[in-house]
């Protein structure tokens, strides 16, 4: 019978900038790690964590299936995945906003017929406007969403906006901010329940300068 107390906790990280920020934070808190050349699995220096590097949008799937018990993920990805996870900590970094945007000077008009919106975030968009009682038609795009109004596919887009530079470059602008998007340390609920002591200790160790000072 394996001794679960001795096995490292499993953590999935999304490839890209977020992982670099997590790496920096964990290093500051004595849980530094690094991925060897092109490897997708790493351990922290103390052997507390086994870390997997996965595609951002696949991360909830790994957690939901219990392959990794913990993960670092943004609200946008969580919303689209729709799985029930615990949010154990919100990080100070990676925050952004989900916005509806359109041509410069355009306003949100939904009095005559349903809104037609292009977005990568179809679940978020449908839910957000449904809760407001506004019918929407959502067209799924996988990238370069800004092109939709430029090429006339839809009048509006719903997308993550950080600086707004891409919108500006395409003669578009934010019409309304719909939600703040934060980055969280998430857990599979069953995994958390089994390993709660060690996970709590780990969460307590992570002092995020931007939030915990």
């Amino acid at each position: 019978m394996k001794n679960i107390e001795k096995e490292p906790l499993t953590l999935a990280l999304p490839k890209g900038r977020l992982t670099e920020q997590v790496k920096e934070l964990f290093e500051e808190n004595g849980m530094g790690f690094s991925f060897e050349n092109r490897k997708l699995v790493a351990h922290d220096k103390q052997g507390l964590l086994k870390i997997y590097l996965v595609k951002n949008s696949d991360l909830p799937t790994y957690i939901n299936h219990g392959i990794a018990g913990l993960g670092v993920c943004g609200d946008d990805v969580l919303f689209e995945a729709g799985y029930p996870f615990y949010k154990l900590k919100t990080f100070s970094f990676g925050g952004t906003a989900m916005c509806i945007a359109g041509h410069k000077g355009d306003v949100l008009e939904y009095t005559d017929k349903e809104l037609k919106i292009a977005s990568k975030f179809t679940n978020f968009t449908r839910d957000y406007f449904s809760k407001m009682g506004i019918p929407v038609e959502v067209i799924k795009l996988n990238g370069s969403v800004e092109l939709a109004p430029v090429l006339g596919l839809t009048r509006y887009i719903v997308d993550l906006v950080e600086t707004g530079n891409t919108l500006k470059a395409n003669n578009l602008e934010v019409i309304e901010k719909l939600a703040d998007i934060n980055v969280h340390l998430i857990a599979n609920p069953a995994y958390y329940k089994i390993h709660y002591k060690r996970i709590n200790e780990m969460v307590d160790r992570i002092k995020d300068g931007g939030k915990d000072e």
Partner: protein
Amino acid sequence: MPLKSEKILNLPQGTEVIHLEEALQHRTLTRTLNDLYTSWGYLPVKTPVFDFYDNYRQLLTGKGKDNIYRLMDRDGDLLMLRSDITLFLARQMGLLLGETELPTRVCYSDIILRHQHREDISKNEFFQTGVELIGSDGLEGDMEILLLLNKTMSKLELPYYLHLGSRNLFNLIIEEKNRSIKLIEALSERDIESLRSEFSVLFTPEKSAFLCTFFQFIGNATEMKTLLTRGKDFLPVEALKEAEYLIKLSEELNSTGIKGELRLDLSEIGSQPYHTGIVFQAYMDGLDSAVAFGGRYNDLLAHFGFDAPSVGFSILLRKVEALLKKSSFEELELKPVKAEGCSWKERFENAEKLRKEGRIVTL
């Protein structure tokens, strides 16, 4: 070989096929548990595969509502397929039972049909086994059900963690209905920031801070006693009594030498709106969600016309079966021998003889 159509290759979502050794293991396990329940005085019941949706509409919320298959009968009535045996059973018992028949002990093992997402095939929520103790309130009923759950889990010979909480405790502290919905949501996500913000609307900063800690508590009886000492000024008297009841329950259970690790967990408040007292979930390493769950629901039967306190649990058996290779259930003897003989009579007689010795024999 001709190409097979997509419909031939796939099953509809929410159902499964099991066969040969796997089916035998499932049958053996089901029989073992049913025999256990009978030895504890629980008699089997069978519930209908589908029933009128309107009977359950008020009792269905969230995911429980989303994953139901609905259909229409020839008279235009909306039906639902059996997605949770407890509900169907409560309706049957609510109609059938009378005061003189209490307490009644029933058990069930049956297929359930829930929609599962095409890309989320890990849940294995296809088969539910469980028991209900109707007409026994308080410690008497709670202890019996928790001990039987422990015995059930012991039969599986796999380590488990039993998390015990109380919906009643939550209801006694949070009286405001509108806020309680948001708090239940925050608790279900263990979302500390939302919890803080919801509590701060209802209570003083000191009480909010305590309740955040309180509803995130997981630990043993001693740790919970320490927590209660800190919280005496913040908890209503009735809530304190309920918390002390949980401690007593855990001490009684531990005194019996239960096999699993028992943890008092105040974030366990039950996912069903009909829970009224203790609630619990059992977790196993290697499974992505709770394998067994249950609790007290004293008002559920009244919804169907007969008022009696009830407590019970269910196990999603197909989830556990994935782990059983690591336990004694892998030792099922499946090596048939062929009967020998010069005539059919001789072969048949030899086969019968060997079968009497417990061998598996083919003709």
